[in-house]
Every structure is written in structure tokens, then in C-alpha cells.
């Protein structure tokens, strides 16, 4: 089991959680070797999630930009509307295998909360979701969905009342209830083995996209682009291309109001190394080591850390990380709506925006593979509010 990525990752948790983490490592290692586990997972991914997800050529947008072809990996078409369910199916199967009856989760935009509530219903498990109070307000459709699915939603009003605080509260709950509770982490962060496990469950995105791209275009993409909050959809996409040096990997962090303003959520581009939520990684923090309140129009990217493997890929240069500001993300959101008839999540709009920037500088033969990690139904109200000048916070 991989616990560190260079100096990053690790297991920085209270001693109470070390034994549960070791049990999880063992259960996951066993499951990985068990063909029945993989078979059941694959069956659910096909017949319940609706995989594989299509690869869509964004023809009108690409032609409008007049450069590289932009190709979208349609994770927005999965059941529940985002890539998150790939991971929650895997973790719920593992929870059942370990005899746990209660699932807990943290959520930012609410997509991971919905995906966890969904699999809890599917497997007949209890589910409680922790969500920052600010996110509860700005992502209310997802709160309603979780409740509809039978989950209990806890609004966390401490700290910045966003994703990091939800994760703090989920860790506290897990510490108190680790006997019967499985903590379903939604991103490639947290203590080992979560970063590796979540990446493995999400790697279906990159594997499929690689195969689909070769089949449709006879070549690999020139660049693979994904948004990065904690980084699960990006790690899932990158996992398919890490061994293909010709493919440029691009992670897009939330630039918020601009890196220079300090109001952003770009941990790699604007942070320094520290320890939070079980991992050593890049963090947004004060000089004295207090975690800073992040800002992004997109709740799902509003996190002060990043998965440790991304920190490692950034240092080694295998992947490049950049930022897209709120206004650029909103413009990309509009562009995809109008040119392609696809309403993207605000998170994914950051990746689309980066592709829109890059496409005109590249020849027509070039392929920009963009992970469209989720759909934007949850964001309608936010986008309207942003446009009318009443920004989310």
C-alpha cells in the first residue's frame, strides 16, 4: 500500500483512527485481489451508474475558437450527475465487506454527499453528511436531494463553514463512531489509504477516456485538463495517462477573484507545504500555520488543501497546475451552454475555461481532453446571483 508520494501524504491523524485506518488498508488490499469485488463493482458501474460515459467532441465550441479540438469526458452523465459516484460505489462495497452499517461523508458542492446518500440507499445503509453552513445555503438543491435519499445532513457553522470544516466534523464523528461507521472521503485527500483508494476508484475516467480517444481519433490527447479542488476527478483522469509522456496533464485550481487578491482556493499555485486532514500537502495557510478561509464561486473547489499525489506531480513537473478565476469560469459555463447545449458544473467550468484559453494557440490536429466532471443543475441560482453582482458569499 502506498502511504507517501515523495514527502507528501502520510497518516497524520489521532491515534484512535490508526487502527481503523489499518483495517481499511487491509480490507482494501484484500478487495483489490478479489475478482468478485471487481466484478460487482463493474456491474454496478455499468447497470446503475451508466458507464461508460461518452466522449463528446465539442464541435461548435472548437470551431468557434479556431484551434485544437476540445473533447469532453462526460462524467456529468453518470447517475447522480458527477464523477463522485464512481468512488462512493467502491467505498460502499468496501464498507459492506467490512461489516460497517453507517456511512458518513463530507461534502462541498453537495455532489459527493448526494453520491454517498445514493449508495447508502442502494445498499440499505444509514447515511449522515456533513456540509458547511455556507455551502448548505448556496447548494440547496443538493441538500434537498440528500434528504430525499434518506440521508441526514448536518450544517457545520464553525470556521469558514465550508468544505474543510465539514471534513473536520466528519473526522470527529468517525473518531467517536469508528466501530460501526465507514468514512466515505470524497476526494484524493485525507490519510492513507484514501488518496490511493479514491484515485483507484476514479481511474475508470482516465482509462475509459484513453481507450475512447484512441478509438475515435486514432491518437492520444495532447493535453488532459481537469479542475482541482481536492483533486479526485483530475487524479482519475490523469491516472489514465501518467505513463504517456506525450500527454500534458493540466490541473486547474480555483483562482476566485484572482491569486493576487488572496481570495482564491489555489493550494498548489498559491500555498505552501503543511499538514491538514491526515496528509502532508500544499495548503493555504497564514505564516503561523493557521488554515486560511478559501474563496471560489464554485463550492466544490473551495478547499484549502489538495490531494498529496497532486502535490507530488506538481513538484516533479509531470503535471502542470494553473488557475482560472470566477469570471473566466462563468464565461466558460455560458460558452458550453450556448455552443454545445451542455450545462456544466461550475467546478468543471474551470477546466473548460482553461481549454478555451489553450485551444486557439494550438493546431486543429491537437486534442484537448477536458474532464466534464459534473453537471450544472445545482449551480443555476449561483450563476444568476453572480451575474447580478450578488456574489455567493
Amino acid at each position: 500500500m502506498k502511504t507517501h508520494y515523495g514527502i507528501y501524504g502520510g497518516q497524520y491523524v489521532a491515534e484512535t483512527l490508526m487502527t481503523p485506518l489499518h483495517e481499511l488498508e487491509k480490507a482494501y488490499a484484500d478487495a483489490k485481489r478479489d475478482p468478485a469485488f471487481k466484478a460487482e463493482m463493474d456491474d454496478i458501474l455499468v447497470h446503475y451508474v451508466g458507464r461508460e460515459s461518452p466522449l463528446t467532441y465539442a464541435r461548435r465550441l472548437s470551431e468557434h475558437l479556431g484551434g485544437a479540438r476540445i473533447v469532453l469526458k462526460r462524467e456529468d452523465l453518470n447517475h447522480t450527475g458527477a464523477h463522485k459516484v464512481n468512488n462512493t460505489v467502491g467505498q460502499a462495497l468496501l464498507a459492506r465487506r467490512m461489516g460497517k452499517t453507517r456511512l458518513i461523508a463530507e461534502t462541498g458542492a453537495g455532489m459527493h454527499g448526494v453520491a454517498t446518500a445514493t449508495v447508502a440507499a442502494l445498499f440499505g445503509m444509514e447515511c449522515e453528511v456533513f456540509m458547511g453552513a455556507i455551502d448548505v445555503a448556496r447548494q440547496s438543491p443538493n441538500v434537498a436531494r440528500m434528504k430525499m435519499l434518506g440521508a441526514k445532513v448536518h450544517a457545520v457553522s464553525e470556521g469558514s463553514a465550508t468544505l474543510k470544516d465539514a471534513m473536520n466534523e466528519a473526522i470527529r464523528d468517525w473518531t467517536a463512531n469508528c466501530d460501526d461507521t465507514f468514512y466515505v472521503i470524497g476526494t484524493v485527500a485525507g490519510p492513507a489509504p484514501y488518496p490511493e483508494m479514491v484515485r483507484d476508484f476514479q481511474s475508470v475516467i482516465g482509462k475509459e477516456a484513453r481507450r475512447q480517444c484512441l478509438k475515435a481519433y486514432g491518437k492520444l490527447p495532447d493535453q488532459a485538463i481537469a479542475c482541482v479542488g481536492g483533486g479526485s476527478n483530475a487524479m482519475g483522469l490523469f491516472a489514465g495517462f501518467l505513463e504517456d509522456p506525450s500527454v500534458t496533464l493540466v490541473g486547474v485550481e480555483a483562482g476566485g477573484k484572482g491569486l493576487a487578491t488572496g481570495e482564491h482556493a489555489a493550494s498548489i499555485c498559491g500555498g505552501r507545504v503543511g499538514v491538514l486532514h491526515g496528509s502532508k500537502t500544499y495548503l493555504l495557510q497564514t505564516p503561523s500555520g493557521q488554515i486560511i478561509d478559501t474563496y471560489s464561486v464554485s463550492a466544490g473547489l473551495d478547499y484549502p488543501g489538495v490531494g498529496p499525489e497532486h502535490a507530488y506531480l506538481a513538484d516533479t513537473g509531470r503535471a502542470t497546475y494553473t488557475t482560472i478565476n470566477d469570471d473566466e469560469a462563468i464565461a466558460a459555463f455560458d460558452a458550453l451552454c450556448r455552443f454545445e447545449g451542455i450545462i456544466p458544473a461550475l467546478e468543471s467550468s474551470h477546466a473548460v475555461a482553461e481549454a478555451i484559453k489553450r485551444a486557439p494557440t494550438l493546431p486543429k490536429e491537437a486534442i484537448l481532453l477536458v474532464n466534464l466532471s459534473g453537471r450544472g443543475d445545482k449551480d443555476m441560482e449561483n450563476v444568476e446571483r453572480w451575474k447580478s453582482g450578488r456574489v455567493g458569499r
Partner: protein
Amino acid sequence: MNRIQKTFARCKAEGKAAYVAYLTMGAPTLEKSFAAAETLLGEGVDILELGVPFSDPVADGAVIRAAANRALANGVTLADVLAGVSGLRARHPDTPVVIFTYYNILYSYGLKRFADEAAQRGVDAVLVVDLPLEERGELLDVLRPAGLTLVPLVAPTTGPARVRAIAEGLEDSFLYAVTVKGTTGQRASLPPELASRLTEIKRLVNLPVVAGFGIRTPEEGAAVASHCDGFVIGSALVERFMKDA
């Protein structure tokens, strides 16, 4: 013998359990938290744990979180707490002082810089709640040359072999046995198996064992500590001094 070892030897000779007190420094103010430490030493506290606040205290319950928020609002930093230790050390040359915090606070400060300054101010040991056995080498590498030790923790979930591994190499310190699964704070009752659990831990290790989490009064602590060497009171003290504010 270091101050920690001398303190436990003295308590043993006096036939009493060591009373370890935790305070969140900077709450309600930095001055008042150091004044509270003096008050507690006057009430018979044997060892001080000085909490340095962190923005994301995942191991703490509501009382200590509220105090940490107050301390952070006051802008209190690790440097402030270390500076205050000098005065404490001058007035109480024999009292062990433990810096109690989360790893990012130390990592951000610079581990070596922290170890050197802490030693110079008169700190004896460090307790880092989110630094388990697997990750502690990096910190020990700088603490040892500075003459400091680490206070390790064991939890109700920690198996016997792991208890031994955790205690190994830290015989000049004391072991903090967490009494319950969950965060810091007061509870209606402690688990019935606590006595046998503490007895088991005592048998496994070769250093003093103190019980902490959920203990409200020195009387309650002394009862728990009849199966080990000492007890910790945290949230109840933090609450008391926040109320006095």
C-alpha cells in the same frame, strides 16, 4: 532524571497520582491563560500542558474548540506561548511543561527552530495530537538533539503490540492513555472497562501512564489513576477559566 521523571518519582513517593492540567493558551487572553497556569500550580497541579491553538482542531470537543477560536481571534501564536514559558520556568524550576498542539503549527514554524527555541525557553516535551507513531520520526529527529521528549498517546483502539511500539524509545516521557473514542471533553461517564484497560497498558510499557479525556475533577482523576500514574483535566479547566473571563 529529567523533570518529568523526577515529578513522577516524587508523586509516587508521596503516594499520589500526578495531576496534569491542560489549558488553551491565549484564551480568554494570553495573560489570563498564563495567570490560570499559576493558579493551577498553586492548587497542586504537577504537570502543565500548554495548548497552542490551531484553526482545525479535529481531535477537540466543543469547549476547547471555543477556547481555541478565542485564542486565534486574539492572534495568539506558538511564538507567544513559547515566550511565556520563560517566565513560568523561572518561577517553577521543577514543573514539567508540555507544548500541546497539532502538527501543522510546528511544521509551519520550522521543526528545528521550534525544538531549539522550546528547549531554550524551558519546555520539556511536546504532545502532537495528529502525529502517530508512523509519522513522528521527523519531529523526534529534531527534538532529541535539543534535549526534548515527546508525549505519546494510546487510544482505546490501540492493540497491545502497538502500545509497546508507541512507548518504545520514549521512556523519559509519560504515556497519555486516551480513555474514550472521540474528541476531548466532558462525558456523563467513563467506560466501565477503563480500569482493566489502564492496568493492561501499565503492564505493557515502561513509563508512567496518565489517563485523559472526560475527567472533570481531581477527585475523579485520582479514582481513575488508582490504575495508573496520573490523570489529565482539560476541558473542565478551560471552561472554568473561560467563565472567569
